[in-house]
């Protein structure tokens, strides 16, 4: 009975892991990149200058600009620059038609001149972040697919713990240079050593989409009024409606200071000004997510915009909000400083490596059986092609995305869309290449191309912008320098991988040629 159970679990682990492995690899890698979303955006919009942080100056600049450009907007959103994202971002919702939702217009301002920065159009790190849960599919299909993938990941983790029963006994074991054995050791090592992260990230992703996945408990306790549930979990700020009489908005600086006092020095994430041109204007100062591990969606202080009177301070979180918020906070890692952020990144890479090694093991095990026959069965060939395109191809696609950012002209129409197109075109081409080329040779070529593209990124950056490594390191712009250096490191890693592949491909090719010769001789 026990063995039967374990075998069933092994079966589930093998097949669930295979079918969703390719997708999960992409989700994990892009999700891992999202930990440096702001830094990637900074690299992809080098026109946005980083200044020493000065919230008062930024706030005044934003208010001056918005008062000139959008005095009668329905709402202003001001996101202050922080140590990771140097852009002072303002957004407003125009107020043309009271019945409909107005359009949102967004600008990035220079906090010193309070003029919009003419930055190149680019999604930046937001692309990876969006992709890792929307998969570039129309709403809600992408979210559903990624949530299903997360569920499968959770199943694969649990069944994996049961299947590889020796992982806790062989906790410290990794034996390199032993072929299949090493892949399995590596799979187990990155699996078990970083297991808390894997479980947390997978489970929390399900919690984040819980209302979509499991509406039943919400419907059961709140009836059809799911609004009531959201009000409890994400306490909304009920703002007074506009009265239709013009009013004068007070400077936002003192409200900002007063809000920080309320939070014992906590940081401000953004400010929302409702009906800025009305006598009934209200200002919500929202706390930064970076302040605490447990994310609080509604932590804000509200003021009357024309009198400056403090209207409301959001209370403590309710228990469900705190539980949901802690999973959300842990998953997103907004609170993480530079060191912890890098640890998050490494954990994410370990998860990606676990999925990748699992895919390699699946194929390697089955290839052994067909080592003696010349042609691989169709299904193994299919897995090989998909493995190559989903792993090496994705690396090429990511590099191509960065290259497109630097090479597409700034004035190009629909520029940011074309960056995304480049990503998918490169990915598609790598799939085509994988179909056309033989196994190992294809791997070597794709890994080499990826290596070349990544290694050259610092050079590309130096040639196309004025922010090369010498400048960014000297000025202490760590986001810019870190991006270049990380690309360089990824390129070197891919070079090493390609070299490893090449070295193991060479004897095999020789053997194949020798076999071909003997076959010919036999025919003769």
């Amino acid at each position: 009975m026990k063995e039967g159970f374990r075998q069933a679990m092994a079966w589930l682990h093998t097949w669930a892991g295979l079918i969703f492995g390719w997708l999960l690899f992409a989700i994990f890698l892009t999700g891992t990149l999202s930990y440096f979303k702001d830094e990637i955006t900074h690299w992809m919009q080098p026109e946005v200058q980083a200044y020493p942080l000065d919230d008062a100056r930024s706030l005044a600049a934003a208010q001056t600009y918005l008062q000139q450009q959008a005095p009668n907007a329905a709402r202003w959103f001001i996101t202050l620059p922080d140590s990771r994202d140097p852009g002072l971002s303002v957004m407003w919702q125009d107020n043309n038609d009271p019945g409909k939702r107005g359009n949102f217009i967004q600008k990035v301002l220079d906090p010193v001149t309070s003029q919009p920065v003419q930055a190149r159009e680019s999604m930046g790190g937001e692309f990876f972040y969006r992709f890792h849960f929307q998969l570039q599919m129309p709403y809600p299909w992408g979210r559903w697919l990624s949530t299903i993938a997360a569920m499968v990941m959770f199943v694969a983790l649990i069944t994996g713990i049961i299947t590889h029963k020796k992982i806790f006994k062989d906790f410290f074991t990794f034996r390199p240079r032993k072929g299949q054995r090493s892949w399995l050791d590596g799979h187990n090592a990155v699996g078990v050593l970083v297991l808390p992260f894997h479980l947390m990230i997978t489970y929390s992703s399900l919690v984040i989409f819980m209302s979509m996945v499991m509406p039943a408990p919400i419907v059961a306790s709140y009836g059809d009024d799911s609004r009531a549930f959201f009000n409890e979990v994400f306490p909304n700020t009920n703002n007074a409606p506009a009265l239709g009489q013009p009013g004068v908005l007070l400077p936002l600086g003192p409200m900002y200071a007063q809000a920080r006092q309320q939070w014992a020095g906590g940081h401000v994430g953004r400010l929302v000004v409702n009906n800025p041109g009305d006598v009934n204007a209200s200002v919500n100062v929202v706390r930064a997510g970076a302040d605490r591990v447990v994310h609080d969606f509604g932590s804000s202080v509200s003021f009357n915009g024309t009198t400056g009177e403090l209207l409301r301070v959001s209370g403590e979180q309710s228990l469900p909000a705190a539980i949901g918020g802690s999973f959300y906070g842990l998953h997103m890692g907004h609170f993480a400083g530079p060191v912890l952020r890098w640890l998050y990144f490494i954990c994410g890479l370990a998860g990606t490596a676990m999925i990748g090694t699992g895919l390699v093991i699946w194929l390697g095990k089955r290839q052994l059986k067909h080592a003696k026959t010349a042609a691989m069965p169709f299904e193994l060939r299919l897995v090989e092609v998909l493995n190559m395109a989903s792993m090496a191809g994705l690396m090429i696609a990511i590099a191509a995305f960065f290259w497109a950012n630097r090479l597409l002209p700034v004035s190009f129409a629909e520029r940011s869309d074309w960056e995304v197109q480049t990503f998918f075109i490169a990915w598609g081409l790598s799939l085509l290449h994988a179909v056309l080329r033989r196994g190992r040779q294809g791997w070597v070529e794709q890994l080499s191309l990826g290596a070349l593209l990544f290694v050259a990124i610092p050079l590309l950056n130096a040639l196309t912008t004025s922010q090369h490594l010498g400048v960014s390191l000297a000025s202490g712009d760590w986001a810019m320098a870190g991006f270049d250096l990380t690309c360089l490191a990824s390129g070197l890693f891919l070079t090493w991988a390609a070299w490893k592949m090449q070295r193991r491909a060479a004897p095999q090719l020789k053997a194949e040629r020798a076999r071909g010769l003997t076959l010919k001789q036999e025919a003769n």
Partner: protein
Amino acid sequence: MLLALLMCYAGFTALCLSTDRHHGELLHSKPSPPRRLTLRVAGWLLLALSMWPAVAASNWAQGVVEWCAVLMLSALLLVLLLPYRPRLALILAGVGLLASPVAAFALL
């Protein structure tokens, strides 16, 4: 976070040495039963105690998260070092143990 890292790394190294196979690989001998017990107790103690500096350096929530991260990464580092640079892995643990009182002093 540094002190927690040093303690976690040393703790995992002690636990690793408490197994016959790794003790043999690293020190070329079989551990005696009392030695094995000492290593095991020391390893678990170090791991458990390493939570204190992580929490003391910041608040509870942040500290626990940092502790988990350091715990995972120190084990990962050790396991990757063991097959390639076994001596370095041991030296690091020794240096970590020697340096941790200094790091602890800096924390106080």
